[in-house]
């Protein structure tokens, strides 16, 4: 029975679906290839996710404009894996979106997700569906580790590729930076209990021990709690000279604020989860001043070679890209190269053929040549270090200007 209320729900649902670009009912023209894009474009991580989304959409649009794959029209299908209840990415929603991609025969490859927690939910479904996905930012090493193949690669062949390196390098290289460049002798390590944060903090901790940096303690924060003062007081009582936080900005903003209140003068650092405007706006200055954060990619936005691309991005979206907008764009370039190769070899553009072509590809992208190892990880392993330095000439949420590039973290 359709009551007034259920009719209203139905209508609202349809309107929402239309607003978020869910697959419509209208049939598009023949020979359409869809590239799925799954990112948390609402919620706490929306700012970074939208940059990645725009990077991918720009790649697709440019390919269509230049008619790079004659006879085919490319389309981006954006699905949002953030839910209102979670307020950020939601692994259950990510899994649902993965099923939507797999069940749509026109989707031949996908870009995303932003978060490792979402990737862990999506990987098995995509693997069963033989659907290639390239993440611009999910860095958890388990996803491509053959040891966990039963979990994340039940289909048997790698479908999960990355245009960033993993936390197997991001954490340890930052530990090298702590030991060699900053010269710290001891560290207290925190994580935010998330898949990404725990893994990153683990790999950082292991390399600290290898480098002789004394690990004074390790604690796990509840990302929904508000008060970390007790832990900060403990860090102060241990006279720690540095702090490392593995996690995303959700808990990170509070770590920045409360560590500034209790232990303002020690060295502090984090991974790419903290390369976010949330840190400079939510925690603000002076609290955020001096934090070191890494990105699991080379630093590109200040590279003169990509200046033309950056102005194209700016004029298309009226905002500045960050490095992960570029890794997202690079992901699209890899998919395009694979499609071209498959079609040039006279094979049908199927998921299986695209996957094989991506796995064996060597593609010139904005970050340089991208090629993958046998597990799907990118072969370059550059981790860039930034320091938050307040630049009053630019708005607080302008990550490009509030995060100052320091250099490449020492590789092990």
């Amino acid at each position, binding site marked *: 029975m359709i009551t007034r209320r259920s009719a209203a729900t139905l209508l609202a649902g349809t309107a929402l679906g239309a607003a978020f670009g869910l697959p419509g009912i209208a049939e598009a023209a023949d020979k359409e290839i869809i590239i799925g894009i799954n990112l948390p474009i609402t919620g706490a991580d*929306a700012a970074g996710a939208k940059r990645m989304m725009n990077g991918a959409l720009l790649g697709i649009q440019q390919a269509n404009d230049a008619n790079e794959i004659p006879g085919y029209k490319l389309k981006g299908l954006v699905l949002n894996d953030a839910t209102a209840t979670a307020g950020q990415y939601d692994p259950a929603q990510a899994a649902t979106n993965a099923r939507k991609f797999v069940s749509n025969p026109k989707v031949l490859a996908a870009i995303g997700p932003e978060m490792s927690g979402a990737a862990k939910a999506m990987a098995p479904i995509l693997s069963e569906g033989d659907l290639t996905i390239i993440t611009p930012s999910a860095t958890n090493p388990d996803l491509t580790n053959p040891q966990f193949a039963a979990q994340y690669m039940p289909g048997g062949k790698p479908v999960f590729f990355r245009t960033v390196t993993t936390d197997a390098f991001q954490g340890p290289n930052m530990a090298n930076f702590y030991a060699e460049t900053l010269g710290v002798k001891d560290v207290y390590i925190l994580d935010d*209990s998330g898949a990404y944060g725990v893994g990153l903090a683990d790999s950082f901790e292991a390399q600290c021990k290898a480098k002789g940096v004394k690990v004074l303690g390790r604690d796990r*924060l509840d990302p929904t709690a508000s008060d970390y003062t007790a832990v900060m007081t403990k860090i102060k009582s241990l006279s720690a000279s540095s702090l490392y936080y593995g996690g995303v900005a959700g808990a990170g903003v*509070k770590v920045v604020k409360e560590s500034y209140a209790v232990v303002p003068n020690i060295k502090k650092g984090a991974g790419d989860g903290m390369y976010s405007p*949330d840190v400079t706006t939510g925690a*603000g200055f002076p609290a955020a001043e001096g934090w070191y954060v890494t990105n699991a990619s080379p630093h590109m936005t200040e590279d003169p070679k990509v200046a033309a691309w950056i102005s194209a991005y700016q004029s298309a979206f009226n905002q500045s890209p960050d490095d992960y907008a570029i890794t997202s764009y690079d992901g699209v370039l890899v998919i395009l190269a694979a499609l071209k190769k498959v079609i040039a070899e006279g094979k049908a553009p199927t998921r299986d053929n695209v996957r094989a072509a991506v796995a064996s590809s060597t593609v010139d992208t904005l970050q340089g040549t991208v090629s993958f190892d046998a597990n799907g990880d990118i072969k370059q392993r550059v981790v860039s270090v930034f320091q938050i330095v307040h630049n009053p000439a630019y708005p607080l949420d302008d990550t490009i200007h509030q995060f100052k590039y320091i250099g490449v973290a020492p590789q092990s």
Partner: protein
Amino acid sequence: MSPFDLLLQQIINGLSLGSMYALLALGFTIVYGIMELINFSHFNVFMIGSFVAMGVLSLFGLQGQSILMHGAPLVVALIVALVVTMVACGLLGVLIERVALRPLRGVQGPMAMITTIGVSYVLSNATMLALGANTKNFPNPIPPMTFHIGTAQITAFQIVIWVLSALLMGGLYMFVQRSKLGKAMRATAQDPDAALMMGVEVNRVIMTAFFLGSALAGAAGFIFGLYYNFTNFGIGFTAGLRAFTAAVLGGIGNIPGAMLGGILIGLIEAMAGQYVGAKWADVIIFSLLVLVLIARPAGLLGRLAPTKS
């Protein structure tokens, strides 16, 4: 820091946190005392309070952490923000009662409670959609001033929190004990039917309970913002759940019980962070809750339903 200073420091941390939980717990307790309803929308009235306070402070030109105020302007700004926030949240509480709960009055079962959960989500999602999900920087115009006891430190602001919480809680207690409306509230809590027969306006009493509870949640939201210097749409759930636990621990429906429960939970959270590990804080808090409820089902200071049932 010496072990003693460290303990002292964590007690200071815990008391500040506990005062906030206590203010929030009072809202659960007042409404439960009168209606036997657990009002989960209270979680996010607290969250809205922090946003209202942020809005009021921004009217004073306060934004970010760099603008400090001194003397009379500071006191005026804080008092105006506090009063506006409390009144706005109080009215929001009354509105929730009127729109979402009054139509369900008299309906048996958990309908009203489930409705409050729905209202809670409406509030948090509406805030997220209207103001964005990212964390907002809450201005703090209070100059940093610290007092030292050994190596432990108290900030002036922590003292303000304690005094303010004590005043609000004391005021509420006096209101309920001494005023005519307070007497009507206690009468309704004991026996709504008899109170109605004695000429107590039950609707008015219930609205007062919602107003007072929500106003205290607003005050807690304001204090939260000033203390942590941030807010976002999601702060309500964890703080609200802890405060709810505090109310149950102290004896839900019992005003001094809510205060005691709040302070205890704040202290436990701080001590767990220092001596056990922050990740165990929830395990300890909720295990303690289970133990207390086994030993004293009505909570530490509660009595089992005085005249009802």
